[in-house]
């Protein structure tokens, strides 16, 4: 993935965010252009949140939960 692309990753704190933590513990790398946003639950995601990310300049949005 190009590092020029800004990606917002909405991650559930109970699974995907914990997995990202574990990946960090394992010294696995991911592009710095990925911005991780922790959510209590990805059930919180709705169209408005995704639109706000795009409006704020994101090229892509990832929802992981």
């Amino acid at each position, binding site marked *: 993935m190009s590092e020029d692309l800004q990606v917002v990753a909405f991650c559930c704190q109970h699974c995907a965010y914990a997995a990202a933590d574990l990946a960090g513990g394992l010294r696995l790398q991911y592009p710095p252009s990925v911005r991780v946003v922790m959510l209590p639950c990805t059930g919180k995601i*709705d*169209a*408005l949140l995704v*639109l*706000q990310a795009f*409006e704020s300049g994101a090229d892509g949005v990832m929802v992981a939960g």
Partner: protein
Amino acid sequence: MIVAEQKSLDEIKKLVGSAQKVLVVGCGTCVTVCFAGGAREAAIVAAELRMSTKLDGSPKEVTDVTVQRQCEWEYLDEIAPKLGQVDIILSLGCGVGVQAIAEHFPGTWVVPGLNTKFMGLPTEQGVWAERCAACGDCILGLTGGICPIARCSKSLLNGPCGGSLDGHCEINADISCAWQLIYDRLNSMGKLEVLMDIQPPKNWQTSRDGGPRKIVREDLRLDKKEE
């Protein structure tokens, strides 16, 4: 509730036209619960308009606000301070809400963002169906609580017609025959004798045929001299 559907973004953009500053006004009542024009939908339409017009090369300044009820002037007063800062209002209220804004703010251009469809109810998650046609002379007491005016395609008063087939309407198999529903309900309640009375032609003057309608309650008016 009044049930409405959002217009397409293309149509909304055409309605907004060349106006630069747009205020999207949502309504917190009927169109909120049918997911067409509440606070969430107003914010989404505003975001869509901002992004779409930015991509078109002529970005607009779009903000949004939601009032509890667009169909009462008192609730519209809270948007009055914003009017000087906008060129146009995109109302996500029903047709009553759009007209209430136009009447209350005569100098403000207002356009509709919804198509108002009917008075009905949600029959399941994501499905709304028409139940009342506001004919002005309710006959539900004669039909077991099922309205043939709104739910029979022909608004028959003495049904069913010959197009009723296996409980469905001839115009669309997805539509239940209202008169079959009425018969089944009266039958299940042991009240089939209700159907023995032939209903005379209905006086449609109480409906739209009598022109625009109005109710005046003298006991509730503050200034009875005022017309």
